[in-house]
């Protein structure tokens, strides 16, 4: 038998996860000279784009434009999409091994890191990721509820997700109405009684992960005054030394923006967004009913590790924050896939440069690969997944050249389709998605929004005339 990758025997690749990493990898495969390849992409939700649809904030439409590039990739006749098909539920790793030469996992980081403090599991303490999935209309999260009748909320963390959550909580109904936020979320947020939103960073402004455009946006909200405390935003000695040694304009600018917030006098806007630095939650207090009634903070100071990284160290000064709603945004973490080796240290699939490793021998498993956040952990921007996917695809091509790949019993596209029709007859194809996309954007045009999302699988099927 000839090596796969030719007209006579195309290389058959399964990609699990229809987010940026999966699409970038598909694009790289299609662009590989001389390679004849067919890609089947799976996702457990019926719609593609992963976090671009369910993670990127609804008031950040510009970045969602990357989906146009994904649609171009999907238009290749050698590409198929099976939406609503879940690994471990409808298909097993063995099923994939029986039908593909190579399998690529791009499932992202589906859960949040925990803070590890008492009271974390009280009611009204939420993972920011769940709130994000909820306001973005993710079918698995749309039925969650958040008690927005409280007046004070805290967002723990100072990354871009934390900034998104703080901003969405602080936006006016009018601002939100012009976005593609889920309609039930718009309704709930319009009735929100939140007056104060605290954003809590354990280090100083210079070490905060959020990027300058995100910080700047917090100062331009129609219905919320942003504020910060002068003594917390002034760089300490170690930070000043670090900046002198390696001047960095973006960081300088970030500090300036936040210092300016500390100097602002509040206008009469209905909400306040309070940025706090050098504080860590140590406990969430029970209000007596099993829900958050307050948060105890410890103040931190910075110390330098051996490599010069400035890290927080708790002092003996505490403070109580009267918040009754908490969103944890201290990082994402990957979830193990059934039948795929996992590296618990880092919360990723066990891999070396994208080749999945056997946990016993530490050698690569034949024909199994990974890319994106489930490969390297949750870092970088959407575009970072392009070089990341390229690294993995380079390994795939290298292995193919050495004839290292799975030997599937039946690699024909028809055989897979038969199997999926049997296991998950309600799956959505890319054609189905493009029809939904058209309906969503049409509904948006009628109401002055980018789109109105379908948030229930049964509504999607009904719109396609399949319910």
């Amino acid at each position, binding site marked *: 038998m000839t090596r796969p990758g030719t007209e006579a025997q195309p290389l058959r690749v399964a990609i699990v996860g229809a987010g940026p990493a999966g699409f970038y990898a598909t694009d790289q495969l299609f662009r590989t000279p001389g390679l004849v390849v067919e890609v089947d992409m799976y996702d457990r939700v019926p719609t593609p784009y992963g976090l671009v649809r369910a993670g990127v904030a609804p008031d950040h439409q510009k*970045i969602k434009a990357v989906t146009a590039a994904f649609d171009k990739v999907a238009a290749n006749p050698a590409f198929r999409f099976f939406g609503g098909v879940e690994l471990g539920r409808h298909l097993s790793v063995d099923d994939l091994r029986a039908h593909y030469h190579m399998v690529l996992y791009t499932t992202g980081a589906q859960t949040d890191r925990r803070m590890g403090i008492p009271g974390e599991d009280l009611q009204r303490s939420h993972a920011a990721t769940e709130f994000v999935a909820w306001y973005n209309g993710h079918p698995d999260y749309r039925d969650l509820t958040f008690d927005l009748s409280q007046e004070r909320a805290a967002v723990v963390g100072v990354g871009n997700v934390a900034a998104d959550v703080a901003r969405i909580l602080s936006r006016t109904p009018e601002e939100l109405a012009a976005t593609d936020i889920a309609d039930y979320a718009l309704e709930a947020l319009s009735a929100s009684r939140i007056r104060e939103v605290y954003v809590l960073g354990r280090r100083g402004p210079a*070490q905060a992960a959020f990027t300058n455009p995100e910080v700047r946006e917090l100062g331009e909200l129609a219905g919320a005054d942003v504020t910060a405390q002068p003594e917390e935003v002034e760089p300490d000695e170690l930070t000043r030394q670090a900046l002198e040694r390696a001047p960095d304009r973006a960081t300088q600018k970030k500090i300036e923006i936040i210092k300016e917030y500390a100097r602002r006098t509040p206008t009469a806007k209905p909400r306040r967004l309070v940025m706090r630095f050098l504080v860590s939650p140590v406990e969430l207090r029970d209000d007596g009913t099993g829900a958050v009634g307050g948060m105890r903070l410890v103040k931190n100071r910075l110390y330098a590790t051996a*490599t010069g990284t400035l890290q927080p160290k708790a002092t003996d000064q505490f403070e109580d924050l009267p918040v009754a709603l908490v969103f944890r945004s201290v990082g994402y973490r990957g979830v193990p896939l059934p039948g795929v080796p996992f590296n618990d240290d880092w919360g990723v699939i066990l891999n070396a440069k994208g080749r999945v490793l056997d946990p016993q021998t530490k050698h690569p498993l034949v024909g199994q690969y990974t890319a994106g956040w489930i490969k390297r*952990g949750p870092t970088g*921007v959407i*575009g970072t997944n392009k*070089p990341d996917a390229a690294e993995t695809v380079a390994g795939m091509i290298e292995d193919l050249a050495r004839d290292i790949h799975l030997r599937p019993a039946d690699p024909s596209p028809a055989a897979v389709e038969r199997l999926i029709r049997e296991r998950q007859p309600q799956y959505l194809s890319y054609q189905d998605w493009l029809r939904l996309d058209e309906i969503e954007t049409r509904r948006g045009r009628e109401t002055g929004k980018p789109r109105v999302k379908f948030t229930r699988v049964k509504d999607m099927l009904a719109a396609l005339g399949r319910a």
Partner: protein
Amino acid sequence: MTIASLLAKKGPKVVTVQPEQTIRQALALLAEHNIGALVVVDPESRPIGILSERDVVRAAVRDEAVFTKTVSALMTRDVILGVPQDDLESVGRTMTDKRIRHLPVVDQRRLVGIISIGDVVKAQRDLYRGEVENLQMELTEEHGRPTGR
């Protein structure tokens, strides 16, 4: 970004050597794994030094009998150790400033990985490429097609 994400895709394998092993054995490990340095560990797998190809080259110039010497005789003892929570940026700066090519990484004193200056450069390059990619996408959106705004 922390260096945890560099370690996450390097697999669990850190090639180590014991201080009483010979330089010949150490060189065999360097060649077998195609790497430039070995972390020297004590019986509890805690790093106590690092042996780089340069350490061996320097010694070999003076001493024909280098192969039979022990690792402990040639290794660098004063090793800077990283932790997974270290920022990529400060790690890169420290490695450049102090001319360190390999940084063992420990978590609660347990060796969890090693990072080379090449890993750092590649990670920084990928971050910049990612940002450029994002900016290009946004520009294409603004100028390439109607945005409705």
